[in-house]
């Protein structure tokens, strides 16, 4: 479904992604782990289409379609969804109005009619119940004044409403207590299916007990330095990233010819 090939991206003249390769098939769940600043969010944002990152080399394909040529909203219409590490507060725009516009825009792209107001509310209620969200979140402005945990839950709520084919969750677990994490994981798992794929970015193995990945990748300094099965996450929990960081440093030194 998703193919990332030799992806290089920089921001403000500094290279952050330095040759990422990643292949995710429909039906799979992948996890990316890695130290702070290794470029995990950058990768997620580049896939979603944030234009402050300049892609200098490589490609990103969704079912063979070149994502890099598409606007962020077009990528969303193609089925890409990013749950932000830091969801943005949008005072003055109600959660419902926003979601309905988003849903209708995606439906329009798929040749479907606008969602009926009654059906929409029923859907909202169902998904909110699933996530144990209070009804007041419906009419409150998007993320404005939400706690960290509430914002993360709201991201998953948006995801469930929009039913993306490729969901990228950027540290959706950080700041969640164990109960909230279970709820969020249930939400993500409910979306799993043979036509969909999930990419989770996390620092903690804990989440992966609930959203069990098919593959785990270690990203260090803008590259994926190791890939493995779910046991790799357990191993990282034990040993940390030091070993990978040293190898990456050595590799970088060699690469730059020093």
């Amino acid at each position, binding site marked *: 479904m998703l193919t990332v090939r030799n992806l290089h991206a920089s921001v403000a003249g500094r290279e952050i992604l330095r040759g990422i390769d990643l292949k995710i098939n429909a039906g799979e769940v992948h996890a990316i782990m890695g130290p702070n600043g290794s470029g995990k969010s950058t990768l997620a944002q580049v896939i*979603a*289409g*944030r*234009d*402050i990152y300049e892609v200098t080399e490589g490609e990103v394909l969704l079912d063979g379609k070149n994502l890099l040529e598409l*606007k*962020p*909203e077009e*990528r*969303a*219409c193609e089925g*890409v*969804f*990013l749950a*932000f590490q830091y*969801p*943005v*507060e*949008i*005072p*003055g*725009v109600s959660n419902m*109005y*926003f*979601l309905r*516009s*988003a*849903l209708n*825009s*995606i439906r329009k*792209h798929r040749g479907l009619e606008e969602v009926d107001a009654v059906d929409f509310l029923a859907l909202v209620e169902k998904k909110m119940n699933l996530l144990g969200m209070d009804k007041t979140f419906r009419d409150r*402005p998007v993320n404005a004044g939400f706690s960290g945990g509430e914002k993360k839950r709201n991201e998953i709520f*948006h995801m469930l409403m*929009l039913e993306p084919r490729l969901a990228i969750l950027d540290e959706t677990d950080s700041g969640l207590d164990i109960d909230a994490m279970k709820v969020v994981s249930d939400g993500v798992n409910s979306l799993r299916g043979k036509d969909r794929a999930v990419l989770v970015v996390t620092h903690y193995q804990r989440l992966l007990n609930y959203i069990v990945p098919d593959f785990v990748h270690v990203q260090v300094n803008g590259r994926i330095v190791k890939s493995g099965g779910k046991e790799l996450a357990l191993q990282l929990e034990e040993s940390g990233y030091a070993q990978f960081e040293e190898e990456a440093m050595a590799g970088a030194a060699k690469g730059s010819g020093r």
Partner: protein
Amino acid sequence: MAEAVVHSELQWTSPQVLSKRPGSGEPVWLKNLRSEASDCFAEMGFPTRNHEEWKYTSVSPIAQTPFRPAWQQSASRPVQSAELDALKKLSGICLVFVNGQYNEALSSVQGLPAGVRAGSLASLFTTSDEIIAERFAKYADYRQHAFVALNTAQWQDGAYVWLPKGAVVKEPIHLLFISNAGDTPLVAHPRTLILAERESQASIIESYWGAGQGISFSNAVSEIVAGDNAVIDHTKLQLENDRSFHIATLQVYQERSSNFKSCSVTLGGALVRNEAHAVLDAEGAECVLNGLYLGREKQLVDNHTIIDHAQPHCPSRQHYNGILDGQSTGIFNGRIIVRPDAQKTDAIQKNRNLLLSDKAQVDSKPQLEIYANDVRCTHGATVGQIDAEALFYLRSRGISLKDARNMLVYAFAGEILERITSQKIRVLVDRVLHARLDAASRS
């Protein structure tokens, strides 16, 4: 126009302009007032940019346009439009003025409670009405302010509203001023007087709407007196065409524990200056002045406020948001005066501006003059662009760039609109604003 030869200030005081109807059938005091105000204007002339209060706004386009008095044209062109119908639907009580003249056929006073009086000022003064007459022109200062002087000398008509003690009017009272100019630039000086006696309550809408494509100049003066415990909710809508000039002075005088709240929405006009002055002259008077202004192309929108805290324990709030596109200019000048007696004043002023283009500009200036020591006064002004992160967030969920921008702009406007008490007015302004934003994003 054949006679458009000399565009000097002279035309504004020339006998030709003054010698028409003012005077005819009017009481002597009013004639005298006109002539005194006319002298004041002749002495002051139009303000120039050397004048501190007019530093950012040049009125020379007004001084140089060969306007004709609008009343000379009033009967000529019929007005009809969906927008006008929507405006008229705001309330069953609607006094309509076309080119500065009361239009009885378009007006209605359905729902006006017995005892409350509202109508044409000009016709009021042909009868003798002391309650109202003795307070006319006592608040807006024609000796200090050139445009107030011009209005006081030359006004043709306008509205009066008198709310007796304890009167409560449920329906909004809508004063609708229509400018309808064709090829000839027209000037009108609408004049309004609203007297709310103690414990009365009403909401007033003053709207200025342009029917024709031509150039008009509305030089409006509105005086509002809120008696003890009176509650007045005021909305001003400026919807004239983008070639028009609009200078308006709202002068509010507040008595004990009165509550005055105003929201001014400016959407049209080549040059618009809204002055809102409130004098809080007794304890416990509360004043809220909110405003929303949109500028596009080369529009200039200038909001000047003065809240004069003369007595203790008066709270005041001001919140103005500006949205400026194209090469437009927004000006906000908010003056808060706290007189020596006005202890425990609690005044907050906020002005936020959103620039949608790099050629748009804003001058925002708070002026606090505080002569008392136990007061709380805060002010804040910001100028910013659309938040790129918010824009990306919306787009990443499938919303188009155009819709995402409009959503954010609209949300910014919403900070002010949500403060409009009347749901009907809010809906109307919402609609006009949406139409305006849609038009802007299509071009």
